[in-house]
Protein backbone atom coordinates (compact mmCIF):
# COMPACT_ATOMS: atom_id res chain seq x y z
CA UNK A 1 0.00 0.00 0.00
CA UNK A 2 1.43 3.38 -0.92
CA UNK A 3 1.87 6.22 1.53
CA UNK A 4 -0.77 8.27 -0.27
CA UNK A 5 -3.36 5.49 0.07
CA UNK A 6 -2.92 4.81 3.76
CA UNK A 7 -6.44 4.85 5.26
CA UNK A 8 -6.12 7.76 7.68
CA UNK A 9 -9.16 9.92 7.40
CA UNK A 10 -8.52 13.59 7.63
CA UNK A 11 -12.02 14.82 8.42
CA UNK A 12 -11.44 18.13 6.69
CA UNK A 13 -10.74 16.30 3.46
CA UNK A 14 -13.16 13.41 4.10
CA UNK A 15 -12.17 11.78 0.83
CA UNK A 16 -11.70 8.20 1.98
CA UNK A 17 -14.75 6.07 2.86
CA UNK A 18 -14.99 5.10 6.52
CA UNK A 19 -14.78 1.39 7.23
CA UNK A 20 -17.60 -0.21 9.25
CA UNK A 21 -15.71 -0.89 12.40
CA UNK A 22 -14.70 0.90 15.56
CA UNK A 23 -12.70 4.02 14.96
CA UNK A 24 -11.77 7.09 16.97
CA UNK A 25 -11.55 10.80 16.23
CA UNK A 26 -8.48 12.79 17.16
CA UNK A 27 -7.74 16.46 16.80
CA UNK A 28 -4.32 18.02 16.34
CA UNK A 29 -3.25 21.28 17.96
CA UNK A 30 -4.07 23.13 14.73
CA UNK A 31 -7.63 21.76 14.80
CA UNK A 32 -7.27 19.09 12.12
CA UNK A 33 -9.39 16.05 12.79
CA UNK A 34 -8.52 12.43 11.99
CA UNK A 35 -10.45 9.17 12.11
CA UNK A 36 -8.26 6.24 13.06
CA UNK A 37 -9.19 2.58 13.33
CA UNK A 38 -9.08 0.82 16.67
CA UNK A 39 -6.51 -1.66 15.38
CA UNK A 40 -4.21 1.13 14.16
CA UNK A 41 -4.43 2.83 17.55
CA UNK A 42 -2.99 -0.28 19.17
CA UNK A 43 0.39 0.66 17.69
CA UNK A 44 0.43 3.60 20.11
CA UNK A 45 0.62 2.56 23.74
CA UNK A 46 -0.38 6.06 24.87
CA UNK A 47 -3.48 6.34 22.67
CA UNK A 48 -4.49 2.72 23.26
CA UNK A 49 -4.52 3.26 27.03
CA UNK A 50 -6.33 6.54 26.60
CA UNK A 51 -9.20 5.12 24.54
CA UNK A 52 -9.42 2.10 26.83
CA UNK A 53 -9.73 4.40 29.82
CA UNK A 54 -12.36 6.52 28.09
CA UNK A 55 -14.47 3.47 27.20
CA UNK A 56 -16.09 5.17 24.18
CA UNK A 57 -18.87 3.47 22.22
CA UNK A 58 -19.39 4.11 18.50
CA UNK A 59 -22.06 6.65 19.41
CA UNK A 60 -19.71 8.41 21.82
CA UNK A 61 -17.16 8.75 19.05
CA UNK A 62 -19.70 10.52 16.88
CA UNK A 63 -21.42 12.57 19.58
CA UNK A 64 -18.53 13.64 21.75
CA UNK A 65 -15.77 16.01 20.67
CA UNK A 66 -12.63 14.55 19.03
CA UNK A 67 -9.85 13.60 21.43
CA UNK A 68 -7.40 16.49 21.44
CA UNK A 69 -3.70 15.83 21.03
CA UNK A 70 -2.49 19.23 21.99
CA UNK A 71 1.21 19.10 21.31
CA UNK A 72 1.25 17.57 17.83
CA UNK A 73 0.31 19.47 14.68
CA UNK A 74 -1.90 18.16 11.87
CA UNK A 75 0.89 17.57 9.37
CA UNK A 76 2.81 15.39 11.83
CA UNK A 77 -0.26 13.62 13.16
CA UNK A 78 -1.30 12.71 9.63
CA UNK A 79 2.05 10.97 9.09
CA UNK A 80 1.71 9.21 12.44
CA UNK A 81 -1.76 7.87 11.70
CA UNK A 82 -0.82 6.89 8.13
CA UNK A 83 1.99 4.85 9.61
CA UNK A 84 -0.31 3.31 12.26
CA UNK A 85 -2.92 2.34 9.67
CA UNK A 86 -0.33 0.73 7.42
CA UNK A 87 1.18 -1.27 10.26
CA UNK A 88 -2.07 -2.07 12.13
CA UNK A 89 -2.21 -5.56 13.53
CA UNK A 90 1.57 -5.95 13.53
CA UNK A 91 3.23 -7.08 16.72
CA UNK A 92 4.91 -4.38 18.82
CA UNK A 93 8.67 -5.11 18.59
CA UNK A 94 10.59 -6.06 21.73
CA UNK A 95 14.16 -4.92 22.23
CA UNK A 96 16.43 -7.97 21.86
CA UNK A 97 19.40 -6.18 23.40
CA UNK A 98 21.56 -6.30 20.27
CA UNK A 99 24.11 -3.49 19.78
CA UNK A 100 23.88 -1.78 17.42
CA UNK A 101 20.14 -2.38 17.14
CA UNK A 102 19.15 -4.11 13.92
CA UNK A 103 16.37 -2.01 12.38
CA UNK A 104 15.20 -2.42 8.78
CA UNK A 105 13.30 0.50 7.28
CA UNK A 106 10.48 -0.92 5.08
CA UNK A 107 9.80 0.73 1.73
CA UNK A 108 6.52 2.24 2.96
CA UNK A 109 8.24 3.79 5.97
CA UNK A 110 11.12 5.07 3.84
CA UNK A 111 8.64 6.85 1.56
CA UNK A 112 6.65 8.15 4.52
CA UNK A 113 9.80 9.58 6.01
CA UNK A 114 10.98 11.14 2.77
CA UNK A 115 10.42 14.51 4.39
CA UNK A 116 12.52 17.44 5.53
CA UNK A 117 14.44 17.12 8.78
CA UNK A 118 12.16 19.57 10.57
CA UNK A 119 9.15 17.33 10.00
CA UNK A 120 11.21 14.22 10.77
CA UNK A 121 12.17 15.83 14.08
CA UNK A 122 8.47 16.42 14.88
CA UNK A 123 7.61 12.88 13.81
CA UNK A 124 10.14 11.44 16.27
CA UNK A 125 8.81 13.67 19.05
CA UNK A 126 5.29 12.46 18.25
CA UNK A 127 6.37 8.78 18.11
CA UNK A 128 8.04 9.20 21.49
CA UNK A 129 5.08 11.05 23.02
CA UNK A 130 2.53 8.57 21.67
CA UNK A 131 4.86 5.66 22.48
CA UNK A 132 4.78 4.05 19.04
CA UNK A 133 7.75 1.73 19.42
CA UNK A 134 8.31 0.67 15.82
CA UNK A 135 7.77 4.17 14.40
CA UNK A 136 10.31 5.44 16.90
CA UNK A 137 12.69 2.66 15.85
CA UNK A 138 12.52 3.37 12.13
CA UNK A 139 12.57 7.15 12.44
CA UNK A 140 15.56 7.01 14.80
CA UNK A 141 17.28 4.59 12.41
CA UNK A 142 16.83 7.17 9.66
CA UNK A 143 18.56 9.75 11.85
CA UNK A 144 21.28 7.23 12.75
CA UNK A 145 21.91 6.61 9.05
CA UNK A 146 22.83 10.30 8.65
CA UNK A 147 26.03 9.52 10.59
CA UNK A 148 27.30 6.89 8.16
CA UNK A 149 30.94 7.42 7.22
CA UNK A 150 31.10 10.95 8.62
CA UNK A 151 34.07 12.43 10.48
CA UNK A 152 33.56 14.02 13.92
CA UNK A 153 33.67 17.50 12.34
CA UNK A 154 31.07 16.53 9.73
CA UNK A 155 28.87 15.02 12.44
CA UNK A 156 28.98 18.27 14.39
CA UNK A 157 27.61 20.01 11.30
CA UNK A 158 25.00 17.36 10.44
CA UNK A 159 23.63 17.05 13.97
CA UNK A 160 24.15 20.69 15.00
CA UNK A 161 26.37 19.58 17.86
CA UNK A 162 28.21 22.29 19.76
CA UNK A 163 31.96 21.79 20.09
CA UNK A 164 33.55 21.47 23.54
CA UNK A 165 34.55 25.14 23.37
CA UNK A 166 31.02 26.20 22.52
CA UNK A 167 29.65 24.06 25.35
CA UNK A 168 32.09 25.69 27.77
CA UNK A 169 31.16 29.18 26.58
CA UNK A 170 27.45 28.40 26.92
CA UNK A 171 28.04 27.05 30.42
CA UNK A 172 29.91 30.21 31.43
CA UNK A 173 27.20 32.41 29.92
CA UNK A 174 24.52 30.47 31.80
CA UNK A 175 26.43 30.88 35.07
CA UNK A 176 26.83 34.58 34.49
CA UNK A 177 23.17 34.97 33.60
CA UNK A 178 22.30 33.27 36.86
CA UNK A 179 24.56 35.58 38.85
CA UNK A 180 25.09 38.93 37.05
CA UNK A 181 27.23 40.18 39.95
CA UNK A 182 29.81 37.45 39.19
CA UNK A 183 30.87 39.18 35.97
CA UNK A 184 31.19 42.54 37.69
CA UNK A 185 33.29 41.02 40.47
CA UNK A 186 35.52 39.31 37.93
CA UNK A 187 36.03 42.56 36.00
CA UNK A 188 36.77 44.46 39.20
CA UNK A 189 39.28 41.80 40.19
CA UNK A 190 41.01 41.99 36.79
CA UNK A 191 41.12 45.78 37.02
CA UNK A 192 42.73 45.67 40.47
CA UNK A 193 45.25 43.15 39.22
CA UNK A 194 46.14 45.48 36.35
CA UNK A 195 46.61 48.29 38.84
CA UNK A 196 49.05 46.15 40.78
CA UNK A 197 46.93 45.56 43.85
CA UNK A 198 47.51 42.26 45.57
CA UNK A 199 44.48 42.29 47.81
CA UNK A 200 40.96 42.22 46.59
CA UNK A 201 39.04 42.60 49.81
Amino acid at each position, binding site marked *: MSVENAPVVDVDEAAIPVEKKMYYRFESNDKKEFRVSELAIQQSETLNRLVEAMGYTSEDVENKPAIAIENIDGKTLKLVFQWCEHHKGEAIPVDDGSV*PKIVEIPEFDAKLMDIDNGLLFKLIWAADYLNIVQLLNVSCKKVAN*MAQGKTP*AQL*RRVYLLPSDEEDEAAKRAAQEAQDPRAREVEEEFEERKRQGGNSFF
Partner: protein
Amino acid sequence: MNRFPLLRLPYVALREVILSTDRSDVINLALSSRKTCRIINTTRNTVSMQKMSQDDVDGLSAFDKLNIACLETRENSTKVRKSIELRLSEQFAFSFLLSHYGNDSPVSRPSCTMSFRFQVNSINDRIEGPREIMRFQDLDVPVIIRSREKICTLWEDIDFGFRFLSYHFQQFKFRMESLEVNPRGADESKFSRFLRNSADFLRSSGKPDLSISNIELMTDSDLQTLLHNTDYYTIIIQGPGRFPDNFACETICLTIFNADGFTLKHLLNSKCERVCLKGTQMTSGDMREVLNNWMDGRLESLKDLHVELRDYLYIAVVLTGLSNRTGYDVNRTEKFMVIRRRDGKKARISIPKDERERKMFDMSICYY
Protein backbone atom coordinates in the same frame (compact mmCIF):
# COMPACT_ATOMS: atom_id res chain seq x y z
CA MET B 1 23.38 20.36 3.94
CA ASN B 2 20.17 19.20 5.61
CA ARG B 3 20.80 19.36 9.35
CA PHE B 4 19.18 17.61 12.26
CA PRO B 5 19.17 18.93 15.86
CA LEU B 6 20.08 15.63 17.50
CA LEU B 7 20.52 16.86 21.06
CA ARG B 8 17.06 18.44 21.08
CA LEU B 9 15.42 15.03 20.80
CA PRO B 10 13.84 13.60 23.94
CA TYR B 11 16.24 11.25 25.73
CA VAL B 12 14.42 8.04 24.77
CA ALA B 13 14.61 8.98 21.08
CA LEU B 14 18.21 10.14 21.36
CA ARG B 15 19.09 6.81 22.96
CA GLU B 16 17.34 4.99 20.10
CA VAL B 17 19.37 6.93 17.55
CA ILE B 18 22.59 6.05 19.36
CA LEU B 19 21.60 2.39 19.73
CA SER B 20 20.85 2.20 16.00
CA THR B 21 24.14 3.80 14.96
CA ASP B 22 26.93 1.54 13.73
CA ARG B 23 29.87 1.12 16.06
CA SER B 24 32.38 3.08 13.94
CA ASP B 25 29.95 5.95 13.49
CA VAL B 26 29.06 6.09 17.17
CA ILE B 27 32.77 6.29 18.01
CA ASN B 28 33.12 9.26 15.64
CA LEU B 29 30.03 10.78 17.21
CA ALA B 30 31.64 10.45 20.64
CA LEU B 31 34.76 12.15 19.29
CA SER B 32 32.69 15.12 18.12
CA SER B 33 32.26 16.46 21.67
CA ARG B 34 32.61 15.49 25.32
CA LYS B 35 28.91 16.09 25.93
CA THR B 36 27.90 13.69 23.14
CA CYS B 37 30.40 11.16 24.47
CA ARG B 38 28.86 11.33 27.93
CA ILE B 39 25.37 10.76 26.50
CA ILE B 40 26.57 7.84 24.38
CA ASN B 41 28.09 6.22 27.45
CA THR B 42 24.68 6.20 29.15
CA THR B 43 23.50 3.73 26.47
CA ARG B 44 24.40 0.13 25.64
CA ASN B 45 26.28 1.30 22.55
CA THR B 46 29.06 2.55 24.81
CA VAL B 47 32.45 3.78 23.66
CA SER B 48 34.10 3.53 27.07
CA MET B 49 36.46 0.67 27.82
CA GLN B 50 35.09 0.71 31.35
CA LYS B 51 31.73 -0.43 30.04
CA MET B 52 32.66 -2.48 26.99
CA SER B 53 32.95 -6.23 27.14
CA GLN B 54 35.98 -8.06 25.77
CA ASP B 55 33.77 -9.28 22.88
CA ASP B 56 32.84 -5.65 22.04
CA VAL B 57 36.50 -4.69 21.97
CA ASP B 58 37.56 -7.73 19.95
CA GLY B 59 34.96 -6.85 17.32
CA LEU B 60 36.42 -3.37 16.70
CA SER B 61 38.51 -2.57 13.65
CA ALA B 62 42.07 -1.31 14.19
CA PHE B 63 40.97 2.21 13.26
CA ASP B 64 38.05 2.10 15.70
CA LYS B 65 40.50 0.96 18.35
CA LEU B 66 42.67 3.98 17.62
CA ASN B 67 39.63 6.22 18.00
CA ILE B 68 38.72 4.54 21.30
CA ALA B 69 42.30 5.23 22.39
CA CYS B 70 41.72 8.92 21.48
CA LEU B 71 38.57 8.95 23.59
CA GLU B 72 40.25 7.26 26.54
CA THR B 73 43.05 9.83 26.31
CA ARG B 74 40.51 12.66 26.33
CA GLU B 75 38.59 11.19 29.27
CA ASN B 76 41.85 10.48 31.11
CA SER B 77 40.37 7.68 33.20
CA THR B 78 42.68 6.25 35.83
CA LYS B 79 41.07 2.85 35.47
CA VAL B 80 42.30 2.42 31.91
CA ARG B 81 46.04 1.94 31.67
CA LYS B 82 47.41 3.02 28.33
CA SER B 83 50.80 2.17 26.98
CA ILE B 84 52.64 2.24 23.72
CA GLU B 85 55.49 0.13 22.46
CA LEU B 86 57.84 1.17 19.70
CA ARG B 87 59.43 -1.52 17.57
CA LEU B 88 62.44 -0.63 15.45
CA SER B 89 63.44 -3.59 13.37
CA GLU B 90 62.99 -4.75 9.80
CA GLN B 91 59.48 -3.34 10.33
CA PHE B 92 58.89 -0.12 12.21
CA ALA B 93 55.74 -0.15 14.28
CA PHE B 94 53.86 1.54 17.09
CA SER B 95 51.93 -0.95 19.22
CA PHE B 96 49.21 0.22 21.59
CA LEU B 97 47.86 -1.56 24.63
CA LEU B 98 44.89 -0.40 26.69
CA SER B 99 43.75 -2.33 29.74
CA HIS B 100 40.76 -1.59 31.91
CA TYR B 101 41.06 -2.50 35.56
CA GLY B 102 37.92 -2.77 37.65
CA ASN B 103 39.75 -1.55 40.72
CA ASP B 104 42.88 0.44 41.47
CA SER B 105 44.87 -2.46 42.90
CA PRO B 106 48.18 -2.77 41.03
CA VAL B 107 47.95 -6.59 41.17
CA SER B 108 44.42 -6.89 39.81
CA ARG B 109 43.83 -8.48 36.42
CA PRO B 110 42.44 -6.33 33.61
CA SER B 111 38.77 -6.92 32.88
CA CYS B 112 39.17 -5.80 29.29
CA THR B 113 42.22 -5.29 27.07
CA MET B 114 42.70 -3.86 23.63
CA SER B 115 45.79 -3.90 21.44
CA PHE B 116 46.55 -2.71 17.94
CA ARG B 117 49.56 -1.84 15.85
CA PHE B 118 50.43 0.78 13.26
CA GLN B 119 53.28 -0.17 10.98
CA VAL B 120 55.32 2.36 9.00
CA ASN B 121 55.84 1.11 5.45
CA SER B 122 57.13 2.46 2.19
CA ILE B 123 54.50 2.97 -0.46
CA ASN B 124 56.55 0.57 -2.60
CA ASP B 125 56.40 -2.30 -0.08
CA ARG B 126 54.51 -5.30 -1.34
CA ILE B 127 51.70 -5.79 1.14
CA GLU B 128 48.60 -7.78 0.31
CA GLY B 129 45.21 -6.21 0.79
CA PRO B 130 43.10 -3.39 -0.57
CA ARG B 131 44.31 0.16 -0.06
CA GLU B 132 42.19 2.58 1.88
CA ILE B 133 42.65 6.16 3.00
CA MET B 134 42.85 6.99 6.68
CA ARG B 135 42.77 10.54 7.96
CA PHE B 136 45.24 11.56 10.66
CA GLN B 137 44.50 15.15 11.70
CA ASP B 138 44.41 16.87 8.28
CA LEU B 139 46.49 14.34 6.42
CA ASP B 140 45.07 11.54 4.29
CA VAL B 141 47.34 8.53 4.54
CA PRO B 142 47.04 5.43 2.33
CA VAL B 143 46.81 2.33 4.48
CA ILE B 144 46.31 -1.39 4.15
CA ILE B 145 44.26 -2.86 6.95
CA ARG B 146 45.80 -6.27 7.52
CA SER B 147 43.62 -7.31 10.45
CA ARG B 148 41.66 -5.99 13.41
CA GLU B 149 44.98 -5.48 15.16
CA LYS B 150 47.29 -4.29 12.41
CA ILE B 151 47.32 -1.38 10.00
CA CYS B 152 50.16 -0.73 7.55
CA THR B 153 50.56 2.97 6.78
CA LEU B 154 52.18 3.69 3.40
CA TRP B 155 54.51 6.63 2.85
CA GLU B 156 56.40 8.12 -0.09
CA ASP B 157 58.92 9.42 2.44
CA ILE B 158 59.15 6.83 5.19
CA ASP B 159 61.17 9.14 7.46
CA PHE B 160 58.46 11.75 7.27
CA GLY B 161 55.88 9.02 7.94
CA PHE B 162 57.70 7.89 11.05
CA ARG B 163 58.12 11.45 12.32
CA PHE B 164 54.50 12.28 11.54
CA LEU B 165 53.11 9.24 13.34
CA SER B 166 55.48 9.79 16.29
CA TYR B 167 54.21 13.35 16.59
CA HIS B 168 50.60 12.28 16.14
CA PHE B 169 50.80 9.50 18.71
CA GLN B 170 52.66 11.74 21.19
CA GLN B 171 49.40 13.61 21.69
CA PHE B 172 47.89 10.46 23.17
CA LYS B 173 50.23 10.89 26.14
CA PHE B 174 50.40 7.13 26.60
CA ARG B 175 53.04 5.69 28.84
CA MET B 176 55.94 4.50 26.70
CA GLU B 177 56.08 0.88 27.79
CA SER B 178 58.93 -0.47 25.78
CA LEU B 179 61.26 0.02 22.90
CA GLU B 180 62.25 -3.08 20.98
CA VAL B 181 65.30 -2.74 18.81
CA ASN B 182 66.53 -5.36 16.39
CA PRO B 183 68.65 -4.17 13.49
CA ARG B 184 68.69 -7.56 11.72
CA GLY B 185 67.29 -7.26 8.23
CA ALA B 186 66.82 -3.49 8.51
CA ASP B 187 68.41 -1.08 6.09
CA GLU B 188 71.33 0.36 8.08
CA SER B 189 70.95 4.03 7.19
CA LYS B 190 67.17 3.90 7.52
CA PHE B 191 67.51 2.20 10.87
CA SER B 192 69.89 4.90 12.13
CA ARG B 193 67.59 7.66 10.96
CA PHE B 194 64.61 6.05 12.69
CA LEU B 195 66.60 5.75 15.90
CA ARG B 196 67.41 9.44 15.80
CA ASN B 197 63.82 10.33 14.92
CA SER B 198 62.45 8.26 17.76
CA ALA B 199 64.55 10.08 20.39
CA ASP B 200 62.04 12.92 20.86
CA PHE B 201 59.16 10.51 21.00
CA LEU B 202 60.89 8.40 23.64
CA ARG B 203 61.82 11.40 25.77
CA SER B 204 58.26 12.69 25.82
CA SER B 205 56.62 9.41 26.72
CA GLY B 206 58.06 8.36 30.07
CA LYS B 207 60.68 5.82 31.06
CA PRO B 208 60.35 2.77 28.83
CA ASP B 209 61.89 -0.67 28.97
CA LEU B 210 64.47 -1.26 26.27
CA SER B 211 65.06 -4.57 24.58
CA ILE B 212 67.92 -5.00 22.11
CA SER B 213 68.52 -8.04 19.92
CA ASN B 214 71.50 -8.59 17.64
CA ILE B 215 73.48 -5.83 19.29
CA GLU B 216 76.52 -6.75 17.21
CA LEU B 217 74.75 -5.34 14.14
CA MET B 218 74.38 -1.93 15.71
CA THR B 219 76.94 0.77 15.05
CA ASP B 220 78.61 2.55 17.96
CA SER B 221 76.81 5.71 16.93
CA ASP B 222 73.42 3.95 17.00
CA LEU B 223 74.11 2.60 20.48
CA GLN B 224 75.18 6.06 21.54
CA THR B 225 71.90 7.49 20.22
CA LEU B 226 69.93 4.77 21.88
CA LEU B 227 71.52 4.74 25.31
CA HIS B 228 72.65 8.30 25.93
CA ASN B 229 69.55 10.26 25.11
CA THR B 230 66.85 8.44 27.02
CA ASP B 231 66.27 7.03 30.49
CA TYR B 232 65.12 3.44 30.53
CA TYR B 233 63.54 1.57 33.38
CA THR B 234 65.04 -1.74 32.36
CA ILE B 235 67.38 -2.76 29.58
CA ILE B 236 67.37 -6.32 28.26
CA ILE B 237 69.99 -7.27 25.72
CA GLN B 238 69.96 -10.56 23.88
CA GLY B 239 73.52 -11.59 23.06
CA PRO B 240 75.79 -12.91 21.86
CA GLY B 241 77.36 -9.82 20.54
CA ARG B 242 80.13 -7.34 20.58
CA PHE B 243 79.75 -4.35 22.84
CA PRO B 244 81.63 -1.20 21.88
CA ASP B 245 84.54 -0.27 24.15
CA ASN B 246 82.82 2.81 25.46
CA PHE B 247 79.52 1.00 26.13
CA ALA B 248 77.87 2.26 29.28
CA CYS B 249 74.30 2.44 30.37
CA GLU B 250 72.28 3.96 33.17
CA THR B 251 69.11 2.15 34.21
CA ILE B 252 67.34 0.54 37.12
CA CYS B 253 67.73 -2.99 35.83
CA LEU B 254 70.15 -4.33 33.24
CA THR B 255 69.81 -7.92 32.01
CA ILE B 256 72.04 -9.41 29.36
CA PHE B 257 71.67 -12.93 28.00
CA ASN B 258 74.67 -14.56 26.29
CA ALA B 259 76.76 -11.73 27.65
CA ASP B 260 80.08 -13.07 26.34
CA GLY B 261 80.92 -9.67 24.82
CA PHE B 262 80.12 -7.76 27.98
CA THR B 263 83.34 -7.14 29.91
CA LEU B 264 84.37 -5.94 33.33
CA LYS B 265 85.05 -2.51 31.82
CA HIS B 266 81.48 -2.28 30.55
CA LEU B 267 80.17 -3.29 33.95
CA LEU B 268 82.27 -0.71 35.77
CA ASN B 269 81.21 2.02 33.34
CA SER B 270 77.50 1.37 33.83
CA LYS B 271 75.29 2.86 36.53
CA CYS B 272 72.56 0.34 37.27
CA GLU B 273 70.79 -0.76 40.44
CA ARG B 274 70.30 -4.38 39.44
CA VAL B 275 72.50 -6.20 36.99
CA CYS B 276 71.98 -9.74 35.77
CA LEU B 277 74.55 -11.12 33.32
CA LYS B 278 74.16 -14.60 31.86
CA GLY B 279 76.88 -16.50 29.99
CA THR B 280 79.75 -14.03 30.52
CA GLN B 281 83.44 -14.62 29.99
CA MET B 282 84.14 -13.04 33.38
CA THR B 283 86.07 -14.77 36.14
CA SER B 284 86.51 -14.66 39.91
CA GLY B 285 89.34 -12.19 39.27
CA ASP B 286 86.91 -9.83 37.58
CA MET B 287 84.57 -10.09 40.56
CA ARG B 288 87.51 -9.19 42.80
CA GLU B 289 87.81 -5.97 40.75
CA VAL B 290 84.10 -5.34 41.18
CA LEU B 291 84.44 -5.74 44.94
CA ASN B 292 87.51 -3.49 44.99
CA ASN B 293 85.70 -0.78 43.08
CA TRP B 294 82.78 -1.00 45.45
CA MET B 295 85.12 -0.80 48.45
CA ASP B 296 86.61 2.36 46.88
CA GLY B 297 83.18 4.00 46.78
CA ARG B 298 82.47 3.43 43.12
CA LEU B 299 79.49 1.44 41.76
CA GLU B 300 77.40 3.38 44.27
CA SER B 301 74.14 2.86 42.41
CA LEU B 302 74.55 -0.92 42.46
CA LYS B 303 72.17 -2.85 44.71
CA ASP B 304 72.18 -6.33 43.20
CA LEU B 305 74.66 -8.05 40.96
CA HIS B 306 74.14 -11.49 39.52
CA VAL B 307 76.85 -12.77 37.17
CA GLU B 308 77.19 -16.17 35.53
CA LEU B 309 80.94 -16.63 35.29
CA ARG B 310 82.97 -18.51 32.71
CA ASP B 311 84.49 -20.76 35.39
CA TYR B 312 83.74 -21.74 38.95
CA LEU B 313 83.57 -18.99 41.53
CA TYR B 314 86.43 -18.93 44.01
CA ILE B 315 85.44 -16.76 46.98
CA ALA B 316 89.05 -16.71 48.17
CA VAL B 317 90.12 -15.10 44.88
CA VAL B 318 87.37 -12.48 45.16
CA LEU B 319 88.46 -11.62 48.71
CA THR B 320 92.18 -11.29 47.93
CA GLY B 321 91.50 -7.68 46.96
CA LEU B 322 90.75 -6.92 50.58
CA SER B 323 94.10 -8.07 51.95
CA ASN B 324 95.80 -4.66 51.71
CA ARG B 325 92.85 -2.73 53.14
CA THR B 326 91.86 -1.62 56.62
CA GLY B 327 88.63 -0.34 58.11
CA TYR B 328 86.28 -3.08 57.04
CA ASP B 329 84.77 -6.20 58.62
CA VAL B 330 84.23 -9.59 57.05
CA ASN B 331 81.76 -12.04 58.49
CA ARG B 332 81.27 -15.48 57.08
CA THR B 333 78.17 -17.55 57.60
CA GLU B 334 77.24 -20.85 56.02
CA LYS B 335 75.54 -19.10 53.14
CA PHE B 336 77.14 -15.67 52.81
CA MET B 337 80.26 -13.57 53.08
CA VAL B 338 79.28 -10.17 54.46
CA ILE B 339 81.74 -7.34 53.96
CA ARG B 340 81.01 -4.16 55.91
CA ARG B 341 82.54 -0.99 54.57
CA ARG B 342 83.79 1.91 56.73
CA ASP B 343 80.57 3.85 56.00
CA GLY B 344 78.45 0.95 57.28
CA LYS B 345 77.30 -0.24 53.86
CA LYS B 346 77.40 -4.00 53.47
CA ALA B 347 78.03 -6.27 50.51
CA ARG B 348 76.61 -9.75 50.92
CA ILE B 349 78.16 -12.31 48.62
CA SER B 350 76.43 -15.69 48.34
CA ILE B 351 78.53 -18.82 48.81
CA PRO B 352 77.60 -21.41 46.19
CA LYS B 353 75.94 -24.37 47.90
CA ASP B 354 75.88 -26.87 45.07
CA GLU B 355 77.32 -27.64 41.67
CA ARG B 356 74.55 -25.73 39.92
CA GLU B 357 75.52 -22.51 41.67
CA ARG B 358 79.28 -22.90 41.33
CA LYS B 359 79.51 -20.42 38.47
CA MET B 360 77.21 -17.83 40.02
CA PHE B 361 78.43 -14.65 41.63
CA ASP B 362 75.65 -12.96 43.63
CA MET B 363 76.29 -9.74 45.50
CA SER B 364 73.65 -7.64 47.27
CA ILE B 365 74.28 -4.27 48.82
CA CYS B 366 72.45 -3.17 51.96
CA TYR B 367 72.75 -0.90 54.99
CA TYR B 368 71.59 -3.33 57.63
